[in-house]
């Protein structure tokens, strides 16, 4: 990879940075306009006086009497100069909460994404080789069914099945609050991972296998595969060495993209299985009118998209010699 590519990546990164900045700014203004944190305080009993409501809000840079541009400026300078995303609606630090939740989401998603990617690519390639055979037709129909199911439906179905079977697998929360001792907690934590991981795996394996299947089918008719066989490679070997190697090229950037974005969390799964990760936070912050947290999520997500975009470009270049000139 030459110097030209370095310059290109830099240009691309700058472009992404500008996009990220605009996106974050947009989210901040949108959240400030749409969400009304005053409601949280006003709905309390007894209802606090207006003046104290405003003073609480002002302490969190949420005072509706201050022009939104001014609040934005405070918010922005705090982030840029102090790395401080402000306070949550309940007074806690957004930074600290975010750190905690990123960790939780990562634990939940790492396993499912890794297994999902690998099994997806394998299943897709296998299906492509067996196009029109019963196994391919069945996995096509099953994957359409899974694609047609929203995540809550998958999750709840799994939960219900578990219950009908007499709840062999526990699933609410990260671990069993009654578990004591490191070993018990870790074991319980692993048991609690099963159902959400299964939910996420189902979604991911379906997506990647469909995608891999179509790129693989594309390659199956390629001339170079015929050349490889004409050289004397048996069918299977030619397919794996020349076909699959070429067919994963378009899939890999997508995989990388997804892996990076796993830190954003899985909204539905986390919510369903009581994991306090980034995804759950997204929903909670909006329902609690937590403008600072929503804005922080906005920044975090768009930065991740930036990183994911750049990384998938790099992976593409690493895999395909035609790109890295």
């Amino acid at each position, binding site marked *: 990879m030459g110097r*030209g*590519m370095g*310059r*290109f*990546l830099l240009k691309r990164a700058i472009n992404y940075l500008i996009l990220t900045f605009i996106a974050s700014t947009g989210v901040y203004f949108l959240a400030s306009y749409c969400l009304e944190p005053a409601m949280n305080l006003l709905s309390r009993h007894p209802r606090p006086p207006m003046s104290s409501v405003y003073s609480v809000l002002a302490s969190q840079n949420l005072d509706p009497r201050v022009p939104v541009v001014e609040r934005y400026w405070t918010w922005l300078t705090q982030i840029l100069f102090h790395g401080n995303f402000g306070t949550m609606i309940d007074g806690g630090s957004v930074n600290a909460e975010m750190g905690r939740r990123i960790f939780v989401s990562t634990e939940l998603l790492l396993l499912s994404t890794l297994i999902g990617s690998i099994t997806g690519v394998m299943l897709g390639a296998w299906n492509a080789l067996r196009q029109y055979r019963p196994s391919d037709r069945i996995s096509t129909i099953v994957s359409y069914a899974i694609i047609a199911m929203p995540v809550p439906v998958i999750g709840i179905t799994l939960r219900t099945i578990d219950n009908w079977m007499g709840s062999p697998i526990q699933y609410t929360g990260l671990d069993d609050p009654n578990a004591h001792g490191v070993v018990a907690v870790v074991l319980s934590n692993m048991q609690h991972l099963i159902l959400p991981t299964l939910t996420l795996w189902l979604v991911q394996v379906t997506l990647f296998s469909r995608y891999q299947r179509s790129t693989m089918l594309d390659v199956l008719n*390629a*001339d*170079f*595969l*015929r*050349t*490889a*066989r*004409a*050289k*004397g*490679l*048996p*069918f299977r070997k030619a397919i794996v060495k*020349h076909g699959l*190697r*070429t067919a994963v*090229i378009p899939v890999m950037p997508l995989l990388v993209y997804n892996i990076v974005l796993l830190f954003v969390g899985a909204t539905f799964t986390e919510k369903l299985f009581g994991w306090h990760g980034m995804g759950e936070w997204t929903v909670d912050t909006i329902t609690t009118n937590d403008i600072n947290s929503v804005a922080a999520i906005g920044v975090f997500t768009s930065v991740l998209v930036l990183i994911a975009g750049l990384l998938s*470009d790099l992976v*593409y*270049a690493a*895999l*395909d*010699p*035609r*790109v*890295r*000139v």
Partner: protein
Amino acid sequence: MTSNNTPVLEVRDLRVTFPSESGAVRAVRGIDFSLRSGETLAIVGESGSGKSVTATSVLGLLPTSAQVTGSVLLEGRELLGLSDTEMSKIRGKDIGMVFQDPLSALTPVYSIGTQLMEALQIHQNLSKQAARARALELLELVGIPDPKRRIDAFPHEFSGGMRQRAVIAMAIANDPKVIIADEPTTALDVTIQAQVLEVLKTAQEVTGAAILMITHDLGVVAGMADNVTVMYAGRPVEAGTAEGVFYEPHMPYTIGLLSAVPRLDKTERKALTPLEGNPPSMVKLPKGCPFAARCPIAVDICREQEPRLVDVAAVPGLQSACHRAAEIGNGDLAREGMFPTPELSEWEGESDRASRPEVLRVENLIKHFPLTKGAVFKRRVGTVKAVDGLTFDIREGETFALVGESGCGKTTTLLEILDLPRKQEGSVVVLGKETKTLTGKDRRGIRRDLQVVFQDPMASLDARMPVGDVLAEPLRAHGWSKEKIQARVPELLSLVGLLPEHAERFPTEFSGGQRQRIGIARALALDPKLIVLDEPVSALDVSIQAGVINLLDELKVKLGLSYLFVAHDLSVIRHIADRVAVMYLGRIVESGDAEAVFESPSHPYTQALLSAVPLPDPRKERERQRILLTGDLPSPADVPSGCRFRTRCPKFVGLTEGEAERCRTEDPASTAMAADHSAACHYAAALEVV
């Protein structure tokens, strides 16, 4: 050539059938041939004749849905019915294969060396170092310059010719007994084709292999083949020695094919002999001889009974499948004139060129593009000098041909003329009007008077529109009334030899030649003065080409048109052009009266180009001395100093140091060789090469 009597490859009654939506496609309906070591057999035929399927089935690489019957014996061992594992031990070892499209034949993600070493290590127990050493030897053998450096290059870094050399290296890696070459040079330029054919011959000498060559190009066959089999509708219709098939064909299809080819060595200007009609559908074959519908001498029995391939007594080794072969053989039916040749009407206008009005003048046209690299990471790395100072003019009633190999800038030139851009370096004057300064109204006028016919008749017609709409589109764009359009469409159709009721059909319902006629009809719709023809016949089969060329010739005279004809096929150009300009790297290196340029080519590039064109005449081909150009066309982003052809110039090599210095430093100007003939070479001298 060495040959012993036991054939290495013997094919008996090979039949291949594919299932399809509309029924079984009987792609090959029984073919026999045998091939001895060191021998070359060419299977010739037009698209869909079953020639490629034959080759692929020998290697057992047809899709599994294909039903293959008959027998394929390699040194007496039956190959049909072998498992994939068993076949894999034969493929690449005993039989090597070279495919048509070198662009897609190599895996894009592995280096050339890796792929070549793989071919070696599959069949031989070689260490990595040994394999690499042998790979270097092979690359050297097929003429890849600086193989030590190039071995680690990826396919996309190779030119088409270099890739095909690499594919040949792979095919001969394990000293095969048979090399199957499926249209090995069809995708290449003519000078590169000459190089690659040379490499194939070398490969054959080194390995002593038999070559099975699949091609549609009769010129290539004449130069390469010892024996020839002509296929039509899935069956051989004529087979024998090259000389027998070329000089004493007994089957009207072969006779027609040979007379339809435009020839570089025919000097008289007359119409080509078209072979009208299309090959039959392979799903619903008519009863009798499949060629009967196109055959001018067909009799009743031809429509009843399919003739078998039988020995022709008069010519040893020749077999023909024709009911009337005997009559052809004894001269009762003359080959000459068997297919009717239309009369060519003569141009009746002013014969003196200078006094005819100018329809197009291009002066010092320059078009440079930024050179970008990378598909994902696009960035500018230089300037492509696609067109670099081009000057020519076309006068009324003239066919002006722009010739050159791919990358010479001819298509750019054409687009630069058609685009009528407002910003342009140099000037383009169409029908007396400078395009840069055109007003809106004049621009519309030029859009009406200047029309275009494209190369690919499939791509140039919108498949969703019925032909009537296709023809009406230019009329509508220029505000014709409905009634006038309705009257004009049938008129246009009959002008190009189609029927008025064809207006309701869709382009896909027509054959390639008919589609190209529709494209021509569309170009004629607005009564233009100048038509730009971009490779108008290169996508067509030979037998259909002739009809389209004749039509163009006839229309020119009838409607007083002028043509700007862009093509790479010199034989076609020789046939149709009045004046010719040869382009190399964005410049015209030689131009003038077609007769003069073809008879006494004076620029070394023109000479090489002409000498690279194979003639469909085995004896002449064998006697010809070829001027082989070395290497590839330099990148138009990196034009050599001085004379831009010097890096490949055969003449440059023989120059003294002082003379050579001039070529290195001084860009040769165009100098007159005769009244209407000039060449841009410091040492231009006429040479007869055809």
